[in-house]
């Protein structure tokens, strides 16, 4: 075991977390709450009046105008260190801003491209000179940036990029040639962070001035959603880039690309939680007003079930997103702020939690998809019409499951990163897996449980889910060895089991923290959502695990494991209709997503 005093990535699988140690949205301080109000105010005052033109007429140029307004408001500087004109905010604050700005539809993507992927490579990998040169102007919006990794021939397989960089004879410039595509903000950005292979092999980052000769910005893509964000190809023909604009180290561009993706993922986790809430606030008032058969829609059982499921899933997503924010902030707080390599080291701490970043990206984007899907359905025919916002939310949501690494790639990464940590000895996973295997194949204990205490059944379920994770990962590693990475079906099922476990535990811990602080009565809303979510999650985990086991072992061994799995996933069921009713009632009263009792 390591002697680190702070949590490490993936550690949640192997140890118990105390409710007091998780960060929750209830822990936001006064300043963070005020920031949130300002972002809400920005969306209302600057975005809403332009909404029709941005979203339905696809006027992508307005994104630039809004960035120019957002800069002086401080909405572009949270990630930038104080010495370079930013605020150096913690990750919880940054994620809260991402969540809130998500209400601005296409502009949320514009904002993310500027303040996230367009800025952070310089924050984390730039030289002091590059930081001085660019960051203060990126913070105010004077300079607009974008980020170019994808090419026509390389998307998920980013390192297969074909763009090249060749050093000139005088050693003063690189000559870049190639094409990048799907570049957010490209229509009006001043600079781009892009990746090219020096001498056709060393994948390297560059900061390129988009006014340089040889740069052509292609036409706007005609997209399904986020129609108001600018998305163009960038073509480079013999573009001269000064050697001083090389970012990071030669041949280490993948460090930049992959680390920035981690940040993109945790921010997207937060913004898709915002998206799910937006879907709810756009649908709930309608369900109260619209009457059919003489009663409002929100009084029909099936509508209430939809509302409850969306709320509980959003609650789980929100809980895991901000729990992850807390993990990142605790880890980063162990660093010395005066260390000149602080920024570089802080991205290393983010990398430590790459597993969690991938999980929240996938889980929250799919929670948002569920919310868009079900909320549109609640509006019936009106949901399908542009007059109501759900039609747009439904289209806009779709991209979240594609960019920042597709959800498929991220599913491969979750068990992949865990196994990597296990093999490096950073996570004592295999030892724990052996212990669980012993327990599962040994004689079952038949102690009859007594009447469970407050959320004790859910706590037991989470503990059992962790055993299931260890068992399936351990067996899969044993069976397939290094070949496991080829078993995409098994890996995806493992990823889903791990995500369900993290989601369930995060919801449970948040509820317990709230109950400890304010009493069980105050946590009643959260407790109902936790009961519903954890119950349903265990059933899903049981199916997924059964399939992984069948893919992994056979004969007597399979039968023994399946029997053990049945014991671990046994549950009596919860009164779902009553839970649906109570959860829905609180959302309907609030006319928005609510964790109130």
């Amino acid at each position: 075991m390591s002697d680190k005093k702070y949590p490490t990535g993936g550690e949640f699988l192997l140890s118990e977390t105390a409710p007091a140690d998780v960060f929750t949205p209830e822990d936001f301080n006064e300043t963070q709450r005020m920031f949130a109000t300002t972002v809400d105010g920005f969306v209302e005052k600057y975005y809403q009046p332009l909404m029709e033109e941005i979203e339905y007429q696809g006027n992508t140029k307005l994104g630039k105008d809004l960035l120019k307004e957002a800069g002086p408001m401080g909405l572009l500087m949270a990630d930038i260190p104080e010495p370079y004109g930013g605020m150096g905010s913690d990750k919880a604050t940054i994620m809260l801003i991402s969540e809130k700005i998500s209400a601005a539809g296409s502009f949320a993507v514009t904002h993310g491209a500027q303040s996230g992927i367009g800025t952070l490579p310089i924050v984390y990998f730039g030289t002091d000179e590059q930081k001085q040169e660019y960051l203060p102007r990126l913070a105010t919006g004077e300079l607009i940036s974008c980020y170019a990794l994808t090419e026509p021939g390389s998307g998920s397989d980013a390192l297969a990029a074909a763009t090249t960089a060749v050093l000139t004879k005088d050693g003063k410039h690189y000559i870049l040639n190639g094409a990048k595509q799907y570049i957010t903000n490209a229509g009006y950005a001043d600079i781009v962070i892009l990746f090219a292979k020096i001498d056709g092999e060393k994948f390297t980052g560059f900061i390129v001035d988009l006014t340089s000769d040889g740069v052509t910005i292609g036409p706007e893509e005609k997209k399904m959603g986020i129609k108001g964000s600018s998305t163009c190809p960038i073509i480079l023909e013999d573009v001269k880039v000064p050697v001083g604009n090389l970012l990071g180290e030669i041949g280490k561009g993948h460090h930049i690309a992959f680390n920035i993706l981690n940040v993109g993922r945790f921010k997207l986790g937060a913004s898709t939680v915002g998206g799910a809430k937006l879907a709810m606030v756009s649908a709930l008032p309608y369900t109260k007003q619209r009457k059919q058969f003489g009663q409002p829609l929100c009084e029909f059982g099936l509508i209430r079930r939809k509302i409850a499921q969306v709320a509980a899933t959003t609650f789980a997503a929100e809980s895991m997103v901000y729990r992850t924010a807390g993990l990142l902030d605790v880890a980063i707080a162990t660093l010395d702020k005066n260390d000149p390599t602080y920024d570089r080291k802080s991205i290393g701490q983010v990398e430590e939690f790459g597993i969690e970043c991938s999980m929240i990206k996938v889980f929250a984007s799919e929670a948002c998809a569920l919310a868009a899907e079900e909320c549109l359905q609640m509006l019936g025919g009106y949901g399908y019409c542009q007059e109501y916002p759900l039609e747009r939310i439904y289209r806009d949501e779709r991209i979240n499951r594609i960019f920042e690494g597709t959800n498929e790639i991220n599913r491969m990464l979750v068990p992949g990163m865990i196994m990597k940590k296990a093999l490096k000895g950073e996570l004592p996973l295999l030892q724990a897996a052996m212990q669980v295997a012993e327990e599962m194949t040994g004689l079952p204990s038949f102690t009859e449980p007594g009447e469970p205490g407050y959320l004790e059944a859910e706590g037991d379920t989470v503990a059992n889910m962790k055993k299931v994770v260890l068992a399936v990962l351990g067996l899969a590693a044993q069976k397939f060895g290094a070949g496991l990475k080829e078993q995409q079906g098994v890996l995806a099922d493992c990823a889903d089991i791990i995500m369900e476990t993290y989601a369930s535990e995060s919801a449970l811990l948040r509820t317990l923290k709230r109950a400890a602080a304010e009493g069980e009565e105050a946590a009643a809303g959260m407790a109902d959502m936790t009961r519903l979510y954890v119950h349903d999650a265990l059933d899903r985990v049981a199916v997924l695990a059964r399939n992984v086991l069948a893919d992994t072992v056979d004969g007597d061994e399979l039968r023994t494991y399946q029997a053990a799995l049945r014991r671990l996933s046994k549950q009596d069921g919860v009164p779902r209709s009553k839970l649906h009713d109570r959860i829905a009632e609180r959302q309907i009263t609030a006319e928005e997503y609510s964790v109130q009792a």
Partner: protein
Amino acid sequence: MKIAVCVKQVPDSETRINLAAPTAELDSSGFTRILNPYDAYAVEEAVKIKEAGSDVEITAITIGPDTVKETLKKDCLAVGCDKALVITDPALDHADAAAIATVLSAALKKEPYDLVLCGFKAIDDDNGQVPILIAEKLGMAHVSTITSLELGEGTLTAHREIEGGKEIVQASMPAVLTCQKGLNEPRLPSLPNIMKAGMKPMETVTCADLGVEVPANLVQIKQYSPPPARGECKLIDAEDPAAAARELARLLNEEAKVI
């Protein structure tokens, strides 16, 4: 120049008020609280004066419990006021306009303010009396519901919207001005200014600290009661508009007895 802005924290207009039966006191536990929107015009005007001139100091003053501090910080200090004064005293819990004006006047006497800016009314009780009373107590000029302001040497010119037109008023300073929608567009507090607001001075005092006694209320709220439930809607089913109109007139006359 010294400017005082008197502000009030009020329930958000979207707050749902739980009032099932008549009561002597509202249950305010679930209220979201905001700066009175008309006070935001007063704050913004003060900040604009500060930005246009030199050596202007703005003090935001309010009466209320500890919870007002968040509003003061976010909506006053973070948008450009220099300091804040909170008068917290249980004796002020149910104070009426006259008592509030007495206490605020005592606070305003502590420094030689050239301008006192206020919202023209608060959206919770819609009273609109306090600024006028302050002007009277301090012997200052008073211009109400202004929609534009220009400062001269010891004088000011303000526009007021009046029925069917505009009134241009000139007044001497010091003066109490109440602000109306249209005067300006209040800004949002930027994130860095929210950070800086925490470092600006905020003083909390009691009435005793100000050397003022809270006078007895002249007015007392006896009861809050919910509006009567809306009756059933009656749809007139008639063959043509003329018949519908006749039936409507008959119902208004015979049943509703309003015509």
